[in-house]
Each structure stands twice: as structure tokens, then as C-alpha cells.
């Protein structure tokens, strides 16, 4: 009974070729993009149909074998890494069908399709799929829903949660739940869609989703402003929002980001205390007027600005932001990518506090992020072979999380909790919401997954 029994039964039922148990296959699934946590599963099941998923969940539940759903493993928190060797990683990437229904305004995607594949399919019809995590060419729809991923266009279009109409989910034991309808209005409650979004594979396996699509903007103009003081950049951002502009993208970078990008990638981006990049979209006739107004706001806040709708120049204006991840990962073998959100009104306080932390610990920490929605990525750089640096980095990581909570924000805007932020998360919940909240969530978990086989050890479970 137990693990080996489960594996041989699953192999028999869905086909041996879909069940990997050789160490050289399962070790390839032992990590995610946090690279902080490592545990190979005992087996990997490559699901190519809903029936495969159902069988795995039925047998694993009976045999009490942990199941860890996995998309592309780009999580930055250890969420798809097993916590025990006798686990099954359920790889959903072979399930990757995408069907666009323009008439009804949605795209149906199986869990393993990548976010970019979904977006590309929509573009063939003059539409697009707005959520765009920087990992979109790799990350799957299942993973993005389970993490409630956001992206650059979040300033205007929000996160995955805002784009789901319906989902199919399989629960431990193999029962199927179809939640929502692929129509723009339906109203029976309680809304279970939200329950599974951001659940990090701890409540069930998402096998497919119906997602809203949006017409491609007629035109986009990129406006870039550089500022000599962080405060000025902050005031530009809040003025843009206060005056009622909602740019599709509104990104902020600090001096250290620009410097690292220049140093490592050899770009000659103008160094300033801060840079703000905004993508203003709209009808052809109006977009330049709107962009001009955004530019004006930046100028009033003391920024030097440039604007363009020429693809090559737009690329130039975005160079420093685009190169940020590559530059830090090239320069530093150890990188902790933070992901806090603060209320927009507190953005400047957060930036100043981060600056203090940077000075206090003496580690480099470029800060960039989706300022339009208050989501910042302070990125702690260190050498993991140096124990002192490692300790400092970890301490900073925790302090930054606490800072977000103190300012009335959240410890994670989009990357999720997984293993990396589990303790901080409990701290946040207890401090802000109290034990009662935890109790409710625990009961929901018990109801949906009484034997606790779904991605154990993640979130608060």
C-alpha cells in the first residue's frame, strides 16, 4: 500500500509512458525558479487528458500520496516543489489546447498552455489576453491562475482573477467541479472561482479555463520620464493616476537598477534617481493627446521626458526595465526577488524605507516594479557562498515583507507564498486578520481535501 502501490496502479490505468520514476527524470522536476528549495518527487505524471488527472487524484487520495500540480515551474516561491520524496508531481504541460471564441469574447485554454500561447492565439483575431507576467512565454495558464499572476499591464488590466469566466477543477478523490460559465454575466454565489485563484495547487487541479479577451489597442505611445529625486517620480505616478489617466503600463525603476543594467549589459541608459515608463493606449486620433498630457504631468513633477510610437524607439525607452532581471542574475549568483505591494499613497515612504535598509545592510538592491499598482520588486543581490551576505539577504527579505504589512500593503503582489513566504504570510494573517480567519480557511481546506494530499506544506497548509 502507499506510494508504490499508487504509482503502479496509476501506470496501469493511464499508461506507463506517462509515469516517470527514473531518478534522472524526476530530478529534473526538483526545483522551481526560486532555486531555494529542492526536493525531487518519487514520480512525475505527465497528464495529457482530464481522465489522467482524475485517475491520479482518485488513486493518490486513496493511498494518501501527496500530489503537487505543476505548470512550467517558474514560481519564485517554491510552490511547485514537493515537500516529501514520496510525492507525485502532476505535470500539466502536455495539456495545452487553446481555442479562441471571438463571437462570445473568450478563449478556452487547457491548464498547460502558456500565457503567451493564449495571447498569440487571440492576436490572430485582433484581440489579446491582457495579463502578462514577465514569464508569460514559459508560465502556464494553470500556474498563472493558481498564483493569481499579474504583469506589466496590471496597472490598467489587473491580474488573472479579473479575466476568468469559468474553470474546470478536479478535487482530491477525483471529483470534477465546473465553476462559472463562459459568459460575461452570471450570478450565483458564493463565487468559487476566487477560491481557487491563488490557491497554489492546495485545493485542487485546474484543468482548463475560459478567459475573457480584449480588443488590441489601436495605438500605444510610450512615455518615459527621468527624475533627479525619487519623490518627484513618486509624485508623477500619483498625479498621473489622480488626474484620471490609466496607462496600460506604469513602471518605476530606481537609480541602482539603471546602474546595474548599464554595468552588466553595457547599455548607455541615462542615469537618474528614478525612471518612470508609461504606455498610453487609445484610439489613433486621441492617443497622442493623452500621451502628451501624461508627459506634461511628468514634466510638472520635474521629469525630463521622451515619448514615441516608433517600435524601435519604444524599445529603447524600455531598455533599462527590460534588462533588469537579466542584469541582476548575470551579476549576482544569489538573487532574492521581493514582491511587495503598498497603497499608492505610501509608495514614496516604501521607497525611502527600502533605501534605508539598503544602506543598513550594505547589499545591492535595485528596486523596480509595477508602480501603477503599487507592486515593487526590491531585488536583493548577494553571493550565496558568503554566509554573512546570505544571512543579511534573508533578514532583509523578512524586513521588507514586514514593511509592506506596516504600510497597509501585502507581502506578495503577484509571485505568491509557496514555501518562501510561508512564515511571513502567517505573521501577516495573524497581525492583520486574526486566528479566526485562519480557522475559516482551514475548514475550507478540510472540506475540499480532507486527506491533505494537495500540495502539502504550501500557503498555510
Amino acid at each position, binding site marked *: 500500500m502507499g506510494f508504490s502501490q499508487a504509482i503502479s496502479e496509476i501506470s496501469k490505468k493511464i499508461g506507463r509512458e506517462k509515469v*516517470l520514476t*527514473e*531518478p*534522472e*527524470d524526476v*530530478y*529534473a*522536476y*526538483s*526545483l*522551481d*525558479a*526560486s*532555486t531555494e528549495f529542492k526536493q*525531487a518527487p518519487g514520480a*512525475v505524471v*505527465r497528464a*495529457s487528458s482530464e481522465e489522467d488527472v482524475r485517475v491520479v487524484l482518485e488513486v493518490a487520495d486513496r493511498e494518501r500520496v501527496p500530489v503537487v500540480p505543476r505548470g*512550467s*515551474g*517558474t514560481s519564485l516561491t517554491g510552490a511547485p516543489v514537493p515537500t516529501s520524496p514520496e510525492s507525485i508531481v502532476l*505535470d500539466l*504541460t*502536455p495539456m495545452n489546447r487553446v481555442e479562441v471564441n471571438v463571437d462570445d469574447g473568450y478563449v478556452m485554454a487547457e491548464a*498547460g498552455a*502558456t500565457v503567451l500561447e493564449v495571447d498569440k492565439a487571440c492576436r490572430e483575431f485582433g484581440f489579446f489576453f491582457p495579463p502578462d507576467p514577465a*514569464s508569460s*512565454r*514559459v508560465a502556464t495558464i494553470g500556474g498563472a491562475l493558481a498564483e493569481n499572476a499579474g504583469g506589466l499591464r496590471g496597472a490598467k488590466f489587473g491580474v488573472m482573477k479579473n479575466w476568468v469566466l469559468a474553470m474546470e477543477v478536479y478535487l482530491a478523490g477525483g471529483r470534477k467541479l465546473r465553476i462559472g460559465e463562459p459568459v460575461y454575466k452570471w450570478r450565483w454565489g458564493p463565487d468559487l472561482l476566487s477560491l481557487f485563484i491563488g490557491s497554489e495547487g492546495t485545493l485542487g487541479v485546474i484543468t482548463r479555463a475560459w478567459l475573457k479577451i480584449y480588443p488590441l489597442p489601436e495605438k500605444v505611445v510610450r512615455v518615459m520620464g527621468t527624475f533627479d529625486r525619487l519623490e518627484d517620480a513618486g509624485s508623477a505616478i500619483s498625479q498621473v493616476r489622480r488626474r484620471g489617466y490609466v496607462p496600460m503600463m506604469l513602471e518605476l525603476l530606481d537609480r541602482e537598477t539603471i546602474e546595474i543594467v548599464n554595468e552588466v549589459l553595457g547599455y548607455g541608459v541615462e542615469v537618474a534617481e528614478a525612471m518612470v515608463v508609461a504606455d498610453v493606449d487609445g484610439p489613433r486620433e486621441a492617443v497622442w493627446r493623452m500621451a502628451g498630457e501624461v508627459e506634461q504631468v511628468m514634466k510638472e513633477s520635474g521629469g525630463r521626458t521622451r515619448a514615441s510610437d516608433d517600435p524601435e524607439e519604444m524599445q529603447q525607452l524600455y531598455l533599462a526595465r527590460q534588462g533588469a*532581471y*537579466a542584469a541582476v*542574475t*548575470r551579476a549576482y*549568483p544569489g*538573487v532574492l526577488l521581493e514582491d511587495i505591494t503598498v497603497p499608492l499613497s505610501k509608495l514614496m515612504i516604501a521607497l525611502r524605507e527600502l533605501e534605508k535598509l539598503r544602506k543598513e545592510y550594505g547589499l545591492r538592491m535595485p528596486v523596480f516594479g509595477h508602480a501603477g499598482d503599487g507592486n515593487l520588486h526590491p531585488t536583493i543581490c548577494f553571493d*550565496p557562498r558568503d554566509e554573512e551576505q546570505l544571512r543579511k539577504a534573508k533578514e532583509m527579505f523578512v524586513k521588507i515583507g514586514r514593511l509592506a504589512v506596516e504600510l497597509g500593503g501585502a507581502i506578495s503582489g503577484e509571485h505568491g507564498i509557496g514555501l518562501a513566504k510561508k512564515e511571513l504570510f502567517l505573521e501577516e494573517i495573524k497581525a492583520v486578520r486574526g486566528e479566526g480567519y485562519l480557522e475559516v480557511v482551514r475548514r475550507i481546506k478540510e472540506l475540499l481535501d480532507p486527506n491533505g494530499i494537495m500540495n502539502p506544506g504550501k500557503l498555510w497548509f
Partner: protein
Amino acid sequence: MKGTAVPEIVRFAAENTTSVGDVLGLGADQRTRWARGLLPRGPVDGTVFYAGEMYPVMGYAEGAFRALKRLEGLMDINSLAKAGPIMRKLGIYTVGTKALWGRINERYEKGLRDAIYVLKNLGIEVGYLFEDEPPSGVALHTYGLLREFKEHAEWVHQRLRELGVKRVITLDPIVATAFRLYYPEFVEGWDVEALLFVEVVAREMARRGVRLRLGREVKITYHDPCYLARTLGVVDEVRFILSRIDGVKYVEPPRHGVNTGCSGDGGLELTQPPLARKVSYERIEELKSTGAEMVFTSCPACIMMLRTGFDSVGVNISVEDLASLVAEAMRNGIEEAMPEEPRFSRYRVFPPSPKPKSLELKDLAEMLEWETDKCKKCGFCNVECPTAKALDRLESRSARGRMTLINSLVKGDPVRPKAVLDRLYSCVLCGQCSQACPVGLHVQELIVYGRAYAIYSGKAGVT
């Protein structure tokens, strides 16, 4: 090599290369017959045409590849490799293979002769070393037999010096890669210049303002070989040559230049032929989608994979070396009209190569651990990884998975060298991973070093 994790087929190819002089071990007579009466023996002005150990016998490989398809399920490539030496002992190997596949090989021999025709007509004088031509040994490098490669390369350098060779011109971008990128790393004082046929021809055509006439209209496309375009950065020359041939209607395939797609070779055609076939389908479809009547390319292994590939999907498109197109047009005469300063970019796609202190296990391990620890597991490398795509994104045979497995191997996780080597051998070394890696890892070269580590650490019994 005996008693290591190296599979039979790799041993077969490696031993043939070093002891007989070509990958299939057919011998000097087969290897050099294409050049008889065509070229003077020995270098001319220090320059030789270098055929290499693959091009002159590629037809035999194609024959074997086709046969293997028929034998599928009955016999795998490693059993076939075992048959070779037995046949050789019986004295029927060369005769037998020639009878079977000699006809197929004639098309490759024609490609070589066409190249010589073009060079001669442009007034570029070259000699040929015939049976003295030392094989580059690139397969040793490809398959991670790096200690053997180093030893062999040092010998080759000495031989070329003795023979008075200062410059080679070759049709084969794989051996050119060896001479241009690997030799300088492995051989101290390496000083032989390696030029590609397309470089020499494009430069000369530009300088003299050559214009050619095909005498017919033909819609063609060109498959950029990974080694030529992405690895060596040679792209513009080909477009230039094509633009100077009247009658050619050129269509670029969707992926081209340094962003080219893999046709399924890079050594995989030898180690895991069924996967190589699978990998090739995407490229075959893509080339087909251009609507071209003919496909040209500049690599013997790509020619082989595309010829057999189009056949296997029942599409009648002929695949030839670009040299043959130029030769055909040149037979109608050469016009010299618009000389221009040759200006071709040399594209740099990859980061610098990783360098271990030595080929000792501990130095290999140290370098590999340091480099693969830098891998952030972002998976950007997997998006275009052709083997991952062909296998429905199976992680252990994807770029990122290979980085993980090498890391596991050197860190002492319970993975077995032989089984890791099998995953590493499933890579075609196309370099699309390195091109996409934000961290700047030279992924495919780490894979080659990973192969070396798996081989030298994986003695029989430890597997």
C-alpha cells in the same frame, strides 16, 4: 572509452574518426574519391580545401539512417554500431556499405565537386590533402570525449603544420566550428585559419562585382544551419550570394538567420535517430510553408536530415548544398559588373565559453557546479528548445532540465552518469537555449562539458 558510460554508437563514430579518418570508418579510398583528378595534392599557397570527416561519406550515414527507419523495433542504432566492426573483420564492411548506399553518397560527392568548380571559376586556388587530410575530430568534442579531443586536436595541428597548411576552406560548418572555436581553446598556439565556402565566395563575388544567371526562374528557400548562423554568425554572405543570382526567387523561412530552427542533427541523428526525426518535423513543415520548390543549405548533416525528412512526409522538394546552386548558375558564365567593398556582419549570439581549469574530474565539477548554480530555472531556454518541443516539454530532455541534471550529477544527487548522459545526448547543440538565457549561460557548451563529466565519472558498474 571501453567500460565507460559511452554508448556503442558514439564509440563506433569516435574510433572510426581517430583511426580510419571518417565517422563511418569507410577508409581513405571512399573518403577521397570525389576529388580524384580535380585538385592538386597538397596546399596551394598554404591553402587547402578541407572536406572533413563527414561530408564525403554523408550518403552512407543517410543510407544507414533510412535503413534504421525500416529496422525500427527490430534493431536500434547501438546494435547496428556493433555490427560494423564485425563486418569489418569479415572484410565485407566497405564493400557492403558501398553496394548498399554508394549511390546515395554520389549526391554528396557532387556537392563537394560543385564547390570546387565554383572556387576554381572565381580564381581561388586550393589544393587537397587526399588521404593525408586529418579528421577534425569534432565528433569527439560533440560527444563530450574532451580528453580524446584534445589529444587528437594537438595531433591534427602538428599534421597540418607538417603538411604546410595555413588556411583551410570548408563546406562543413561543423568542422569549421571546431577549427574556429574549439581548437583555439584546446590547442596551444593554434594558428590555422578556417574559412567557410560561403564566406570566401561571397567576398570574391562582391569584390569582383559578380552577377550570375540561373537561366530559369526558381522559387527557393534557405535553411540556415545552426552551426553556421547561430554559432559562427555567418548569415549575410548567403543572402548576398543569392541576391547576385538572376532567376532565384528567394523566400525567407519564418525562422532564419541567427534565429534559425533546428533540422534535427547536431549529433542526435547518430545517438537517438527517432528523436532526431521527430525534432526535424517542425523545421520541415516550416520550410514547406514557404512554398519553395527547392531548399538550399550549407551543412552536410542538415542536408541529410532534410532530404530524409521531406521523403518521410512524402513531400517532393529537393535539398541541395548552396554550392550546387552557385555552380549551376556559374555554368552559364560570369558577368562582372558592380564591384563593391565586401561588408558582412559577424553576429555574436553566445556568451563567452565556460572554462574549466583542466579536464580533470574535479576541475570539470567545479566549473559545472558554479555555472549551473547560476541557472535561475526561469525556463526561457525551454521555449524554443527543439527536443523539449518534440517531447511535449519533457523536462529531463529540455535545456533547463539538462542544467538541473548536470547540477545534480556534480553535486552527488542519486542520479546515474549513464542515464544522465543519455539525457544530455538527446540535445542537438543548436544553442537556442543560450540565445534566450537571461543569465548568460552558455547552455549547450555546459551540456558538452556535462557529457564529459558523465563519461569520465561514469565508469562501468557505477552506471
